């Protein structure tokens, strides 16, 4: 039972080959687009790499490699399709066609995997950001420790650019010591009191760094004693709402990256559909050209298909081939083993089947 059978006359075959040649060249372009999307995502992730605890760089790397592979494979495919217009030239590519189609099928599924990765990486990103931001806030004050000295600048720039404060909300800053001991007067009683007031001996205040200040606030920024209304004149509910950025940086970064990856994922899905279309066309062309060679008449009408037998039969026969390849090697390794005649007869006939089913 042939899957997807279509009949092709000679002019139809030539037209198919020409159309596929053009589509393959367009695919090279889409491969370049895929590559550049991967590169863009890599740059975006690396920009805020310091506030992420673990990398999600495998997603852009996947996109970059599949993009490059797309360019190469479709370039080759274009060349093959151009040669398919002429039966004589097709002979050159006859043996390469099947491996080429299998390669393209594998690489098309890689594109699909890349697209799905873009959507599935969300939860991993959220956890990575939660942990990364927590550590960044803890090491905010360590501007003299090598390896962490730029965390303050990174976090400040992050809060300014994304208009966010803290991990989930600005109160997160109340729970970390973000002022280094170098700038605390340890002889002062107020400082000593604060240090003693909690178990870990940290200098905790109800204050936030300047980068949390909202530019939309009508009054100058209140950074110290943020939650307390009494030390500040005319500090009502509304002033408090507008004073600092209310959004947490985790949410801000999640929105940013989710937006980017959703657009990229959608584009990659469209590219995958296009590649699938090209692959189907190439498969039809390949089976049609092979049937032409088998019939011997270049001008005749031939059939083209996706699979010669039904899906179950094809799977079974391929599985048998793989099994017998193993058996063949076993036989060749040791000529002293007594080979039963039935197996000897079986092997050549299976070998004969291979060209017919490919």
């Amino acid at each position, binding site marked *: 039972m042939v899957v997807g059978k279509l009949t092709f006359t000679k002019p139809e075959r030539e037209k198919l080959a020409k159309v596929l040649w053009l589509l393959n060249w367009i695919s090279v372009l889409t491969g370049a687009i895929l590559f550049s999307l991967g590169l863009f995502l890599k740059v975006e992730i690396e920009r805020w790499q310091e506030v992420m605890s673990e990398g999600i760089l495998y997603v852009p790397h996947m996109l970059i490699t599949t993009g490059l592979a797309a360019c190469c494979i479709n370039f080759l495919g274009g060349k093959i399709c151009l040669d398919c217009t002429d039966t004589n030239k097709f002979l050159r590519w006859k043996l390469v066609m099947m491996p080429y189609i299998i390669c393209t099928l594998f690489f098309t599924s890689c594109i699909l995997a890349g697209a799905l990765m873009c959507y599935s990486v969300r939860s991993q990103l959220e956890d990575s950001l939660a942990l990364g931001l927590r550590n960044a806030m803890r090491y905010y004050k360590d501007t003299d420790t090598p390896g962490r000295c730029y965390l303050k*600048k990174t976090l400040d720039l992050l809060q300014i650019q994304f208009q966010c404060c803290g991990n989930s909300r600005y109160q997160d800053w109340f729970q970390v010591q973000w002022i280094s001991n170098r700038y*605390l007067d340890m002889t002062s009683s107020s400082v000593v009191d604060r240090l003693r007031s909690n178990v870990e001996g940290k200098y905790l205040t109800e204050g936030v*760094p*300047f*980068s949390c200040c909202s530019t939309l606030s*009508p*009054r*100058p920024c209140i950074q110290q004693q943020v939650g307390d209304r009494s030390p500040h*004149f005319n500090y009502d509910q509304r002033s408090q709402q507008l004073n600092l950025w209310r959004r947490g940086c985790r949410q801000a970064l999640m929105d940013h990256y989710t937006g980017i990856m959703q657009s990229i994922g959608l584009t990659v899905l469209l590219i995958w559909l296009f590649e699938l279309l090209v692959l189907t066309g190439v498969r039809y062309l390949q089976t049609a050209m092979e049937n032409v060679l088998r019939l011997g008449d270049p001008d005749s009408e031939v059939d083209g298909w996706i699979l010669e037998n039904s899906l179950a039969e094809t799977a079974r026969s391929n599985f048998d081939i793989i099994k017998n390849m193993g058996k063949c090697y076993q036989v060749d390794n040791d000529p002293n083993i007594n080979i039963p005649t039935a197996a000897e007869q079986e092997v050549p006939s299976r070998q004969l089947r291979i060209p017919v089913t490919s």
Partner: protein
Amino acid sequence: MALMLVKFDLKKRVKLAQTVWFMYWFAVMAGVLVFSMGLFFKIELRKRSELMDNNESHFLPNLLIFMGLVACGINAFGGKVCYDSLDPSKFVKWKPMLKGFLFCCMGFNALLLLTALLCFIMRIPLQFTLAEGLKSGMRYYKDTDTPGRCYMKRTLDLMQIEFRCCGNENYRDWFEIQWVSNRYLDFSAKEVKDRIGSNVDGQYLMDGVPFSCCNPSSPRPCIQHQMTNNSAYYSYDHYTEELNVWKRGCRYAMLSYYGGMMNTIGVLVVLVTMLEVAVTIGLQYIDSSLSTLVNPEDPESESEGWILEKTVKETFTDIMDKMKSMGKGTKVEEGGQAAVATVS
């Protein structure tokens, strides 16, 4: 003796026409570039017009836009003429207006060079506009409840963050104005009353700056208030503290930003002028080579091309004579009329 005489045969003429046609298409794209640069500059000025007191001059970007459009038009027309010069029958209809068109091109090139010069010069008035605009902007920083000025605080904060600058000349400018609104000052507090009483205008002045002046690269948390008081903070010396707030004044920051933009635009316009001069010379060669055919009926005959028919000196004296004779012509007429008047 013509200036830069070159001999042409048919093949050379065709090659010349094709090259100049090609260059005209580049020139059209250059015209589009000049237009878009003018548009970009106009938008950038508009974006920060509040900081320039809405007083900035849009003369330069408008001129660039106009010159870009004219360049596109002139170059497209020139390209068409070049294309038609390959076919003698089509070229005939352009022949009479070619001299006038070349004069126009020369005038346009001079104007383009002037525009480039303006790009470099306009930096100076911009400096004054910025200084004035920033001063009044800082004065209105606290007026977030006055309609028309309520966005000044946000604009200034965003500008200081983006351009990494503080104040007009430097951060001390903030010490001289009241940037905290009276709405947020407790007039019953002694400290507030002291400060207001301490100066003639009754303003609440302090040695502090807004948060947008803070430098994220500073190793310590930002010190915004009591900046000149070393004892207010542990291990703080305001003379040696370099990274606490941005040291640069916003006037210099914005000036270097716009100055850089104008310099780049000026350089590009100079390059476009050179391209325009080249295509004008090319068209002059085409015109002169097609009008000096040895055998007018035979398109394959040889001809000569030049930039000027006589030497520069002779051309100049010719022009002077022509102008003089034009002047004399009108005088003679007047004289004749006067004679007629006396007679009658």
